[in-house]
């Protein structure tokens, strides 16, 4: 499912003294089955884009082409609801959206809203709970009795249960411990690889961008300032710092090695690539001696 933004503008509280322009002239296209990372410092308009992508708000001006359907200022709410069925969004700290008596019921809530029968919803819920790796002994418990990390899993399962084709993740690992973080990111990567899910990830973790994304959108002050693959984005450390962003540690390390006279390729963005090229380099040097 492709999404295209055409000259999209968004103004909060348009026409009031509190009017506040969040996005100006946004143009980009997200290819089906792409893993896109959306980066930019706080207040650059990332969250507004997410809400537009999920049809929670309508653009003030411009169009969003959603798999051929046009969404603009005049699109009725009913059509937006159809968009939401195909887009799942995991908001920041999603555990604050839990409300049902049991974990299972909460996960079933989404599918049931989109017209699934309780039987179907339960199947989808069980599938989603297995995906997020929550043991079955928790399924009949109250979500408020779980630990923070487990609550997060339940909330994410609640989104996965609606079987979206596009999954939007707004800092899904914020506040998790390193193990939980790794587990969750791996799970999303697997969903992307195995179920052809289109993923849009908002994050401040450049490591995650380098590791998983194949397309990066850089936002600054409501504008799209760069749209490229991670290699191109991370090639210019000085420019990123101007945007109050950073390069991943692997790139930082590579740049330091290059400054010390090492000759390493430019397209290194993660640890694995760094290790490989170092291996090649050291072996090659060894052979030369």
């Amino acid at each position, binding site marked *: 499912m492709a999404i295209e933004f055409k000259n999209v503008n968004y103004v*909060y*509280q348009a026409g*009031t*003294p*509190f009017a506040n322009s969040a996005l100006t002239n946004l143009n980009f296209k997200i290819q089906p089955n792409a893993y896109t990372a959306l980066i930019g410092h706080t207040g650059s308009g990332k969250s507004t884009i997410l*809400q537009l992508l*999920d049809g*929670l708000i309508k653009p003030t001006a411009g169009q969003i082409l959603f798999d051929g359907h046009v969404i603009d200022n005049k699109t009725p*709410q*009913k059509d937006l*609801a159809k968009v*939401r*069925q195909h*887009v*799942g*969004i995991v*908001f920041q700290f*999603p555990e*604050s*959206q*839990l*409300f049902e008596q049991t974990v299972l019921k909460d996960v079933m*809530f*989404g599918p*049931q*809203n*989109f017209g699934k029968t309780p039987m179907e919803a339960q199947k989808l819920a069980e599938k989603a709970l297995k995906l997020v790796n929550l043991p079955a002994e928790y399924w009949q418990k109250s979500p*408020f009795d779980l630990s923070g990390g487990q609550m997060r899993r339940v909330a994410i399962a*609640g*989104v996965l249960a*609606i079987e979206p084709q596009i999954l939007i993740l707004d800092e899904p690992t914020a506040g998790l411990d390193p193990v939980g973080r790794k587990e969750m990111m791996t799970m999303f990567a697997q969903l992307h690889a195995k179920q052809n899910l289109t993923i849009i990830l908002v994050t401040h973790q450049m490591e995650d961008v380098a590791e998983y994304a194949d397309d990066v959108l850089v936002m600054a002050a409501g504008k799209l300032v760069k749209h490229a693959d991670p290699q191109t984005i991370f090639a210019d450390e000085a420019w990123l710092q101007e945007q109050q962003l950073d390069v991943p540690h692997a790139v930082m390390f590579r740049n330091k090695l290059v400054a010390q006279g090492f000759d390493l390729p430019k397209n290194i963005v993660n640890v694995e690539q760094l290790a490989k090229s170092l291996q090649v380099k050291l072996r090659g040097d060894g052979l030369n001696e």
Partner: protein
Amino acid sequence: MSNMIIGRYVPGNSIIHRLDPRVKLILSISFIVLIFLANNWLGYVVLGLFTLVAVVSTKISLAVYLRGLKPVLWLIIFTIILQLFFSPAGHVYLAFGPFTVTDMGIINACYVFLRFVFIILMSTVLTLTTPPLALADALEYMMKPLLKIKFPVYELSLMLAIALRFVPTLMDETVKVMNAQRARGVDFASGSIIKRSKAIVPILIPLFVGSIQRAIDLGDAMEARGYQGGENRTKFRVLKWQRRDTVAVLIFVCVLVVLIATRFII
């Protein structure tokens, strides 16, 4: 919610902005009482001029005030219609069944309309130019005499200050939870009343749970910083009475005198 003007603060640096919040609060309350003193057109002209001067001197665009009137428009129209059609006294212009339109009815309807508009404009002046925390300070100061009858003034004003501080936070939280549930297929905008009120549950429960958690965290954080109760604390924001506050009170007293005079002139 974004259309609500009443209760919002617009930062600025006008004369009204710089007035002591106590003065603004007391004068606004007295103004509401004052309005009922006017019983003829001259009185309403005086009040209208005073309101206009207050509104203009806030240096906030008139459109903002008009938008503040919008939510109560229906209430105003309803009251006017009641006054217009159900005043039996005075010269009758029109009569059909229980409905009568009389000259007294028309005049009363105009007065009620003006009263509504003045009260709303003045309270909007108060809230647009006074930060909520300053209002809480003013209230605390004014409740001080109640300490003599063992009324928990400090506790109440602390609760008020905390409540005011968390209004925007809770609003953000509400929008966030609503969005999250909408993304999961909840429809708040259509369906029967029963269906719509059922759709509130997935918002209310997370909000309650979040508020309780926040209250626990805030209580712990306050205790960790040595809070032990309201008695014997010093204040960071000290309210200072200045000359412009005296001037404001004097102007108000003048209006009061003129208004009482109008009752005898006509």
